[in-house]
């Protein structure tokens, strides 16, 4: 199972005494897009935040179980190192308002005081912006503030910022929820391009989006993993009745 980049084993997550996730077991293969689907409050965002150890930032958060990144438990490693290897893009675009576009892309290095030669950082900025499909639009305005971009462009800037760290996995937490349909379809196109070179885990409550972008889909319901499989299989012949009902819009 060399291809399993991420393995989640008997994983539980809590806020205080409230159990958010129960006994999650998942295996993600390298360089695919996986979507985590489920009604609001089912714990999908919590699962995503556990994968790069953002969950523990809440005061009363706790976890049980293992998440293995390339065979090594992320909860045995410094959270800062994990977060550099597992990038995250949030629901609302959040470029750093005090930085220009160039500095936003290279922010991961600057904030971690990783020294780069000018030519190296130029290269990383250009590559990341090209990957995020933003280069053509901002190449002449690299030194303008990132907050002047449109919502969709800001979100792609945030993707470029995450990609610049050359992470193994990219997490997208409802990254298109605050965007208009055009910008959403651009981001979806982007996910489809990127998934050949990086593992992407997408949390969404948009069923159609999961079908469009992901190779595998996990369906969560009230903290439990109900079903996991190839997106095509799960959407056409769901094994569990609850999955079927959710996909056909009976609840959620």
């Amino acid at each position, binding site marked *: 199972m060399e291809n399993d980049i991420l393995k989640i084993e008997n994983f539980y997550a809590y806020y205080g005494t409230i159990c958010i996730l129960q006994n999650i077991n998942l295996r993600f293969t390298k360089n695919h897009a996986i979507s985590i689907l489920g009604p609001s409050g089912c714990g999908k965002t919590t699962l995503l935040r556990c994968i*790069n150890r*953002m969950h523990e*930032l809440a*005061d009363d958060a706790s976890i049980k179980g293992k998440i293995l990144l390339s065979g090594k438990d992320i909860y045995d490693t410094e959270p*800062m*190192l*994990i*977060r*550099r290897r597992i*990038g*995250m893009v*949030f629901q*609302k675009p*959040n*470029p*750093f*308002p*005090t930085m220009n576009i160039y500095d936003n892309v290279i*922010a*991961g290095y*600057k*904030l*971690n*005081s990783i020294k780069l030669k000018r030519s190296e950082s130029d290269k990383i900025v250009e590559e990341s912006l090209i990957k995020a499909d933003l280069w053509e639009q901002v190449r002449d305005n690299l030194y303008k503030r990132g*907050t002047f971009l449109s919502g969709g462009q800001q979100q792609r800037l*945030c993707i470029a*910022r*995450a990609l610049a*760290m050359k992470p193994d996995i990219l997490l997208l937490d409802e990254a298109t929820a605050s965007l208009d349909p055009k910008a959403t379809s651009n981001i979806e196109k982007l996910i489809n391009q990127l998934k050949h070179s990086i593992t992407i885990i997408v949390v969404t409550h948009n069923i159609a989006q999961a079908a469009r972008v992901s190779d595998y889909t996990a369906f969560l319901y009230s903290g439990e993993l109900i079903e996991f499989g190839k997106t095509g299989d799960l959407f056409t012949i769901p094994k569990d009745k609850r999955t079927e009902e959710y996909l056909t819009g009976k609840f959620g």
Partner: protein
Amino acid sequence: MEKRLKVRQIKDKLFTVVMALFSIAIILPLFFIIFYIVRNGAVEIDWHFITSLPKPVGEIGGISNAIVGTTELIGIATLIAIPIALFTGIYMKEFEKSKLAAVVSSLTDLLQGVPSIVIGIVCYLWIVLPLRSFSLLSGSVALAIMMLPMIIKSTYHSLKLVPDSLKEASLALGTPYYRTVMKVIVPAASSGIITGIILSISRVAGETAPLLFTAFGNPFMNLNITKPVNSLPLLIFNYATSPFSDWQKQAWGASLILIIMVSALNLASKIMEHKWKTTY
């Protein structure tokens, strides 16, 4: 029906007029203060007044020592107050739910209410008595203590406006917590923080009471922090209460200089706020 509507419209008009009247009433005293000071002070001010030292009664002196003294007092006070207030403000925001932050917050409110003369006495006991001399240092510490609550509050409130999503963005890149605070959160709040600092400076620039038995006043130029120093408010106080009409006139001139300095700071804070404003 018609009549009731008319009455309501009249009430509306009346309400607007009353608001406007009170707003004008607020401007009037300020206008008279400035008018008076400019009328009496402007004639006193010339190059000689600004650049030379006070002279005995009968000779025409200047107030250079007080201008330099006020600048020194404010400068050192700011250097003392900024780090303390900044870290306190950041702590209050970042650990808002902790007991310590709650205690510090209410003590900050309390400190803001302490009369400035009391702060002066405390600094007299703390610094003047042990060093056996009135000093620039003791005056600066007194002013710094007065600045603390203002800077702490403005820092706290500016930081509160920074959305949590920025902190998450930074942490998600693997940035250590202290660098996230210092490189992402504080810069995003910088315009509010700097505005607060400038306003606190302009607020203490005119303080006299805490300087009476700390900086004390000095007819000569002083650059030594262990020696007494003159300041504009002290000079104005001494000159205006003196029996000599020359000195009384010079007090007007000094008042105008002080007002110009404070207004310049206020203007700077406005420009800063506008120019450095961060949009999230």
